[in-house]
């Protein structure tokens, strides 16, 4: 059973009607062309209405749609070849993060991304896409390797957060996130980060320090999930929709803030309704941005990357009057 959001229902009903009519036309040979055109116009209008005024919370839910493409889906759609590499060389192979070497337009690149499962069984193997420290250490190892061989790095980010478990804490979840952020910042290769679904806090930033940070239209990126924010503010996780509003976590907001560089538009109805279309979009955006930053010398690239993050933040110098009093 595919997941259908309540706001999609009128559209889905209309689409079903259209399909029924089409079948009818096909089977009976009666000409309903005008009616069909009319209905399709209606559907187009409805689509626009629905998807142009999605609330932040609705977009969060779209980012979490169970049929949304995962990292491995994108890898299959975008690249000509892929060889997955495993392990952190220290403790384990975290299947919540996949990574390896892929070919884009004949050139090798390193691709890394948290991997959600498609069903319960896979989700258990993938720990629902929530990485342990060894996952981040694998990512870091592969990023360092990419640097060694001058391969660009592409990260596909879809992660609610680093796993908050006992063993994860034991093995230094906070420390490894800091190490990833710090070391990724200085890598002498082009880095494109694409938030494809959820961009949850430090667990996303750990693989999110890029020369270009792109976001799919209906993805979110925030310091805290709406549910957790609502719990803190109002002791009520059900007020997540209101929190989503406050947090300014949509691609639209983040583009305005300059936190991200570009929004990758999704096929109407969202990525989950059209994988191939989404894959083509992501590939086109990736190609464009990557070819732009490939032209920059690595020294300059690292400088720009550092400057980019250096300037984030809003504050004022304290007024002199206050200082004196």
């Amino acid at each position, binding site marked *: 059973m595919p997941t259908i959001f309540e706001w999609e229902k009128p559209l889905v009903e209309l689409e079903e009607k259209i399909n029924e009519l089409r079948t009818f036309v096909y089977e009976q040979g009666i000409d309903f062309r005008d009616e069909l055109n009319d209905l399709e116009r209606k559907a187009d209008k409805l689509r626009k209405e629905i998807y142009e005024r999605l609330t932040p919370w609705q977009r969060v839910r779209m980012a979490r749609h169970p049929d949304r493409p995962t990292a491995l889906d994108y890898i299959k759609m975008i690249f000509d070849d892929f060889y997955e590499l495993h392990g952190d060389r220290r403790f384990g192979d975290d299947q919540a993060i996949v990574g390896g070497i892929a070919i884009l337009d004949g050139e090798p690149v390193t691709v890394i991304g948290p991997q959600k499962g498609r069903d319960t069984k896979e989700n258990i193997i993938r720990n629902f896409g929530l990485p342990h420290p060894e996952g981040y250490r694998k990512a870091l190892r592969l990023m360092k390797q990419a640097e060694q061989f001058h391969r660009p790095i592409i990260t596909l980010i879809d992660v609610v957060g680093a*796993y908050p478990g006992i063993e994860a804490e034991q093995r230094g979840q906070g420390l490894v996130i800091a*190490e990833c952020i710090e070391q990724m910042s200085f890598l002498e290769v082009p880095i494109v980060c694409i938030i494809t679904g959820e961009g949850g806090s430090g667990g996303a930033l750990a693989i999110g320090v890029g020369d270009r940070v792109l976001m799919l239209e209906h993805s979110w990126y925030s*310091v805290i999930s709406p549910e957790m924010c609502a719990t803190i503010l109002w002791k009520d996780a059900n007020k997540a929709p209101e929190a989503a509003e406050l947090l300014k976590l949509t691609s639209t907001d983040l583009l305005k803030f300059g936190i991200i560089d570009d929004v990758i538009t999704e096929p109407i109805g969202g990525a989950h309704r059209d994988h191939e279309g989404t894959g083509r979009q992501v590939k086109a955006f990736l190609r464009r941005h990557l070819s732009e930053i490939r032209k920059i010398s690595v020294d300059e690239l690292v400088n720009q990357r550092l400057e980019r993050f250096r300037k984030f933040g809003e504050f004022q110098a304290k007024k002199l009057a206050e200082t004196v009093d």
Partner: protein
Amino acid sequence: MLHVFRNKPKYATVRTTKADQEVEANGAQPRKNADQLWTRCDDCSSLIYNKELQKNRYVCHHCGFCFRMSAVERLQLLTDECMFTPFDALVSANPLDFPGYPEKIAHYQNITQLDEAILIGEAKIEGYSCVLGIIDFGFIGGSMGSVVGEQIARGFEHGIAKELPVVVVSGGGGGARMQEGIFSLMQMAKTAQAVGRFKRAGLFYLSILTHPTMGGIYASFASLGDIILAEPKALIGFAGPRIVAQTTRQKLPPDFQTAEYALKHGMIDGIVTRSEMKATIGKLLSFHL
């Protein structure tokens, strides 16, 4: 150098239960009633006479638990005769137009007499010049917004410019300043990169973790020290213990996320009591001249 503090700190801070540290903490608790003369130790439950506690640098003399200190008290503890030249003060903006945030800032400025959750500047410790930053838990749980991030970055940049070591005393409940949303998250990158630049300049960064150092502060500059020390029993980790318990539905080990646990699991270099902290910092600075 200046003696920058006009007012002696008025308030001591006490540790409350682990549960409430996780969510946003209310910071320093002024002891409003004059007759409230005693404080209960969170770790061993002993009742301690407040004057005794203050005299003992807010360390429980029964179990060694280190109560929270304000940044100013910490500064007095660590610096040579409070020799400290603060950086230019910065105050928070409200980048998300988060409702009530400016009022919250004003409230905590009033309570703590600080501009923000960090005190930072050039200091002298045991005769050695350094950049010293201290996070104050009393200011919105010691969380990192744009100002804390900027000041930390400036601290490391100042260190590079003047070839000084940097000492940061961290202690933030949840790490991030939720009200600044994505801007708060970006401070993790900004500060981690500042440390990275500083290290690549061959300079020495000593990170000191006090109770509690969690979330985005732990997962950025606080855990990137060349040497990392902690106060006894300080809570150190990424996810808060309540979230871990909820997520895993497991009973947490009794010493979970304590400094002792971090030491055992290889995450810190050592545990140093409050009374030995200044001398230890001095020694480590002397090793890195």
